[in-house]
């Protein structure tokens, strides 16, 4: 049984169709990357999977059960969410924000010290332990992204859904986050679903030996699902983006794959 399965999903804003006929499944320990051009519907799809939006048609199954049947607490046990954009309203202490990831485990009580310890543990794991006592409104965009990831990890769910996980991150932090995700998937069997623009992210997961699936989305449809190197070596990139591209292999201690792309006109 798949951890996450999407069956014939469709969504529209009014009469504006965002996506339709979306079907795929994700196995435990897999990193599933939704990739596609701007406006292809991947963010909306992620919100349907998170049950933030109600699909027009179709079903999302988590552990074989329709997510519409889950209570919020039960769903939070299964799926944690790292948003791309977060509106900060009040200057909470960063550690308290991360500890909110334990919401599903607490009744109306204050989070006990163990929750703060857990929160600090995940912050340290991501290399942001020094931010624990600061006000989270003073953090940079990249630091905030790391804090929100730490909060999601503190939630200790089976599935992690991330929208553009590297959107606000510098080159070092991007590598850090991608490696953390690889580790979570490989060592702890966590399932990761993320949307991204950058083809080098799925390539890196594959190089690091994670079980990766990549879904190419275009105009509200999933056009192909496969492993990154295989998929990116086919002609699909040209069909979707109308550019030339080639997967390059750099051999260091282990092979590294990168996608190079250029405009046709230039050639």
């Amino acid at each position, binding site marked *: 049984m798949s951890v996450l399965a999407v069956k014939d999903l469709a969504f529209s804003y009014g009469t504006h169709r965002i996506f339709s006929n979306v079907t795929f499944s994700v196995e435990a320990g897999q990193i599933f990357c939704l990739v596609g051009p701007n406006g292809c519907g991947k963010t909306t799809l992620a*919100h349907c999977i*998170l*049950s*933030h939006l109600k699909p027009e048609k179709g079903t999302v199954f988590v552990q074989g059960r329709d997510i519409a049947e889950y*209570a*919020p*607490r*039960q*769903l*939070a*046990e299964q*799926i*944690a*969410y790292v*948003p791309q954009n*977060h*509106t900060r*309203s*009040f*200057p*909470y*202490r960063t550690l*308290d*924000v991360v500890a*909110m*990831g334990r*919401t*599903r485990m*607490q009744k*109306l*009580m*204050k*989070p006990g010290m163990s929750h703060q310890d857990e929160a600090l543990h995940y912050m340290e794991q991501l290399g942001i332990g020094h931010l624990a*006592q600061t*006000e989270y*409104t*003073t953090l940079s965009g990249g630091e905030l992204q790391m804090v929100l990831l730490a*909060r999601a990890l503190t*939630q200790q769910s089976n599935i992690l859904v991330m929208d553009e996980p590297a959107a606000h991150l510098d080159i070092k932090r991007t590598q850090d986050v991608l490696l953390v995700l690889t580790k979570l998937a490989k060592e702890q069997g966590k399932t990761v679903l993320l949307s991204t623009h950058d083809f080098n992210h799925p390539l890196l997961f594959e190089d690091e030996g994670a079980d990766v699936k990549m879904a190419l989305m275009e105009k509200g449809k999933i056009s192909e699902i496969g492993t990154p190197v295989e998929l990116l070596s086919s002609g699909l990139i040209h069909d979707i983006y109308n550019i030339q591209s080639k997967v390059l292999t750099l051999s260091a201690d282990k092979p590294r794959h990168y996608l190079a792309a250029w405009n046709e006109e230039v050639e």
Partner: protein
Amino acid sequence: MRSSGKTKWIAAAGVAVAIFLLSICAGRFPLSPGEIAKAILQRVFGVEYGLNPAAVAIVVDNRLPRTMAGALVGAALAASGCAFQGLFQNPLVSQGVLGVSSGAGFGAALSILLFSGTAFVPGFAFVFALAAVWLSFMVARMCGEVTPLMLVLGGTIISSIFSALLSFLKYVADPYNQLASIVFWNMGSLASVESSLLPFGAAVMLVGMAILCVCAGPLNVLSMGDREAKSMGLPVLKTRILIVSGATLATAGAVSIAGTVAWVGLVIPHIARFLIGSDNRKLVPFSILLGAAFMMLVDLLCRTVTGSEIPLGILTSLLGGPFFIYLLRRYKGGGWK
């Protein structure tokens, strides 16, 4: 850091207790703390200290209930102000946002017109305050999901309707008697606190504040935004309804006792935020403490500064406004922007 936090709690509690004592001692008939203690013992246990019966009556029937009512009203308004600010993720809203005040104002005016007296004013104010919030909620729900934006919109619509109805009642009211009562009530006062109504109002306010204190943690999570709160496992709508109920009970209880008192629900949470930080688990109880102290102080000034009573709402704004400007300057706009 922890110790300085503790100091702030002790300082705030000390200030509140000092104002409480001062408020019972001071007045047109000043009494010493010793006389206060004697008066209370004399009434409660029938011990005879040979104290003037008028002094006993002033302490036990007037100043004590009035000061306690003031403390509760300030506490309730401050706590619900915190809750509304957290709920709407907006530091500029206060209880008025869902129509509590205009609903209560209309209810009070209606009862003044119907019964040409003030006996039913607290009851009417209470019921219409709840009704206004309920209607705002219904308007928000009519359009699908109950988001903060829809709630504010619903509240704005319902408030304006009740304001218009209040204006109409003022227009048809007898200008010499009823209109004066309506206007005076809408400026807020603790002068006419009747002991028989106090227990009910106090109980409602305490229940409301208890709900808000218990929900302070979830309120933090809710202020992360609906989607994130939901993904962290918070039942968003249920929590929101619970917090709105707590805040509404606290406010409606306060309004039914003291009339509409401006500013406290907006300013006290801000002052508390400057002092103790934004974590609602600390902020809500600290606001309660500060609100109680502030309201007792304002009421003390209301009844002692001039020969006649000054309405509460005037002094809360006159004192709160400049103090807020001072804090804004001192903290350069605070930490939330």
